[in-house]
């Protein structure tokens, strides 16, 4: 099993994501440079946070043209696991691998803080080691995390159990106060139709070790490892 972490010019959580896989999950992992179409036979692709291309046109907008993204699209179409975190989520939306868009936070400011998210489905290779309804403490750090999609897309997401996480209170209530950025329906993370692509704004890479304040986010990496080794699953 091998993980690949994409590196775009301006990615800045690439090392953090790499570190979780290598040092906490103890799995083989490699960096994949944006300019090369090769995924080097990786079994799972991680699209890390940061400011790819400075986020200068729109967050995630320029990264989708990278040669590596063409390969990632095909990889996902073939059922490969792709996790996009923060800027990675924005890139996956821009690239059309996930529906909707991430807009400027409702408060118009960058927000970095610990938040709580509720697991909305355990039925995915990213959440299989979690319980539905389980609350995780995971930090956010973004300027554009305000999830938006049209009503019919939202209906489809909900009907097909594709909302992976919602911002919640520590006890798991979905309230406007628990929504840090104005996201539609408190959405913090969504799955694609095939359930093999997850995009989320909160950072599991920043919450995989107790020393950093929370290790709750590690369950997402652990689920991926389980899915790939076939130890657990649907």
């Amino acid at each position: 099993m091998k993980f690949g972490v994409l590196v775009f010019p301006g990615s800045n959580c690439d090392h953090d994501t790499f570190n979780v896989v290598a040092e906490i999950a103890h799995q083989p992992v490699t960096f994949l440079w944006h300019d090369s179409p090769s995924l080097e036979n990786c079994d799972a692709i991680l699209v890390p946070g940061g400011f790819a291309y400075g986020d200068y046109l729109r967050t995630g907008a320029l990264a989708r043209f990278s040669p590596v993204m063409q390969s990632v699209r095909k990889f996902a179409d073939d059922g490969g696991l792709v996790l996009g975190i923060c800027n990675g989520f924005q890139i996956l939306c821009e690239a059309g691998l996930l529906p909707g868009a991430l807009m400027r936070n409702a408060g118009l400011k960058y927000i970095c803080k610990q938040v709580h998210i509720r697991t909305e489905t355990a039925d995915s290779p990213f959440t299989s080691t979690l319980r539905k309804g389980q609350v995780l403490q995971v930090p956010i750090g973004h300027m554009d995390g305000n999830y938006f999609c049209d009503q019919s897309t939202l209906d489809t997401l909900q009907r097909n159990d594709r909302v992976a996480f919602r911002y919640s209170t520590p006890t798991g209530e979905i309230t406007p106060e628990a929504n840090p950025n104005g996201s539609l329906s408190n959405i913090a993370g969504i799955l694609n139709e095939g359930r093999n692509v997850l995009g989320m704004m909160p950072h599991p890479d920043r919450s995989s070790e107790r020393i950093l304040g929370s290790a709750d986010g590690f369950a997402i990496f652990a689920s991926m490892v389980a899915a790939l080794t076939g130890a657990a699953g649907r």
Partner: protein
Amino acid sequence: MKAHVYVTLKSTVLDPQGQTIGNALRKNQYHGVTDVRQGKYFVLTLQDSLDAADAAAEVERIARDILTNPVIEEFTYRLED
């Protein structure tokens, strides 16, 4: 030839920045304003060899494929010699 491309959020999408500016205008007694939408403005300098029709087609393609995110944004443009 230059193309001036204006990108704004779709009218159906909430524009908190525009709203904040609008509120500030009203609070500062600019009563003539009922709504503000903000956006981005691009100036593309085009190759001289393009004729007007080619230029329009090229600019529309760029605006649609790259400069806007069709989920939330729309654009208008004008060409200038």
